[in-house]
């Protein structure tokens, strides 16, 4: 696998995610677009996971705390063979395995998320468990940025540093907006990098839509020996679909058929 293929995989993930949310008339397309490149890089370039053995004890662990990006996660899982592409049609439908919030009903998903601020504490436990087992497997957790307003994250941030969990990587999808407004207007996260450093983490900043840069940054973890790593991925909510980009109304907006076709066209451009 080479990083030159990643943009093509990310395009396919975006296409599948847009199709999934449009068909279901449900989900959060702008969040999917925000996280698409991160999820693609993780699953196509970084995580040691195998769809044939989703419960392999030595697999890397990925926790998608950014549960709003469920369609993007399910899409990337389908491109990696964890579920048939056809099953994406069942997103949110009666009896489906594909809950609108990320659900561990699906093999390969470590944790059901949706209540924000739960993924990082869980990942800290998983990373402690890996260390206790003497395993070199890695634990990666993706959070949104608005989600970092939940205090439970900071309980876990302190504890991960106390325990020196350098087998843990937190990727923050830093698109700077939440449902109602910018994160900085509502409950400011900045200076975020300094906060993580002050809490004892090693921090890097990356363009969250540059798959080669994401790949390089992830490969560099741990960013400092004996410290948990935080990768602040600077993103654009709605990235790749012009009318969604940074438009708050697309948090859970629905596309018309015309908009959907326009969006697919822009992906190919």
């Amino acid at each position: 696998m080479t990083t030159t293929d990643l943009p093509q995989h990310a395009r396919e993930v975006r296409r599948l995610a847009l199709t999934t949310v449009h068909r279901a008339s449900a989900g959060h397309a702008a969040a999917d677009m925000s996280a698409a490149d991160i999820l693609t890089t993780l699953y196509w370039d970084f995580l040691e996971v195998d769809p044939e053995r989703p419960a392999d004890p030595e697999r890397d662990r990925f926790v998608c705390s950014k549960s709003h990006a469920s369609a993007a996660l399910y899409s990337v899982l389908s491109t990696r063979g964890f579920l048939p592409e056809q099953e994406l049609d069942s997103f949110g439908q009666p009896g489906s395995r594909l809950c609108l919030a990320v659900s561990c009903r699906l093999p390969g998903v470590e944790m059901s998320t949706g209540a924000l601020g739960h993924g990082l504490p869980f990942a800290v436990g998983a990373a402690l468990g890996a260390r206790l087992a003497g395993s070199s497997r890695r634990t990666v957790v993706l959070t949104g940025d608005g989600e970092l307003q939940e205090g439970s994250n900071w309980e876990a941030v302190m504890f991960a540093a106390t325990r020196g969990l350098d087998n843990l990587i937190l990727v923050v999808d830093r698109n700077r907006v939440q449902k109602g407004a910018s994160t900085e207007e509502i409950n400011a996260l900045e200076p975020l990098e300094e906060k993580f450093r002050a809490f004892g983490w090693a921090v890097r900043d990356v363009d969250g839509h540059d798959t080669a840069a994401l790949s390089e940054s992830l490969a560099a973890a741990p960013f400092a020996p004996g410290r948990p790593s935080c990768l602040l991925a600077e993103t654009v909510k709605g990235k790749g679909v012009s009318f969604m980009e940074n438009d708050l109304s697309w948090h859970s907006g629905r596309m018309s058929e015309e908009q959907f076709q326009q969006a697919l066209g822009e992906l190919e451009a």
Partner: protein
Amino acid sequence: MTSSTKPSECAAAFSAALLERGVEDERIVIVINDSAETHFATEFATRFPERVFDVGIAEQNMVGVAAGLTNAGRVPFVHSASCFLTARAMEQIKADVAYANANVALCGFVSGLAYGALGGTHHSTEDLAWMRAIPNLRVMAPATANDSAAAARALAAHEGPAFVRVISKTLVPEIFPREHEFVLDRALTVREGSEVTLIGTGLGTTRLLGAAEILTAAGIEARVVHMGTVSPIDAEAVASAAAETGRIVVAEDHVVSGGLGGAVAEAVVQSQPVPMLLLGVPDSFAPIGPAEWLHEHFGLTAERLAERITEWLG
């Protein structure tokens, strides 16, 4: 059924039994929010320091970390004061443990009114109601030291999300033998009687047993049932009690709404409706005072229970 009436410490017995299981089963770990001594985790920590995770004063992270440890095949026992564990981390208990079907044993120490004069912030008199509302979460409340030890063994042997309400600081008479087994999801009749059934859990069980002994002197033969598992409740045992004795009394160191009384009432109205008397903490916060005084204040001693039951039976 009485094997000894010597009062004993339930929390210490629970933790000693867990340590024994921990020697045999290295999957067992403890996650705790400081206060290892209060919740009897120090011996485990001395023996197995690498298997104790003290997250500090951070209950949400505590339960999340425990759920994450199950992802690595560990069997976490979360030791915490019941008031902070159940209220502060309720969403983690619901989502990360019960919804996820994670094999975590949530151990609520210093339950009920045991914190005494520390007051309403520390009393845990709503925990049974909160916990039993959560699907896929077994809710247990052992009654004595031997029952608590047996509950720890049962939890270690059984897979699945559970909350166990542990009696701390209040000494209770022992009514079970050392080799006693805690049978999950089953009520246990600890005294036969035909005129009324007294149903308790946790501290309530031995208090009601004491009340039954007073009642027998007054010519009233009361059956006493220990409901060691509050959720799922043993509805058959409740129905039998209703059918065979015609009246049911529940007493608990918990608010009268939503706890064991509510659970028993739900079973009774769906099987064999009979008159019930629900005793416990009324819809109020406790005044300031030591736990024994609070038990007296709320009528949860054997003598006061016997008086109220006699009056109700008429």
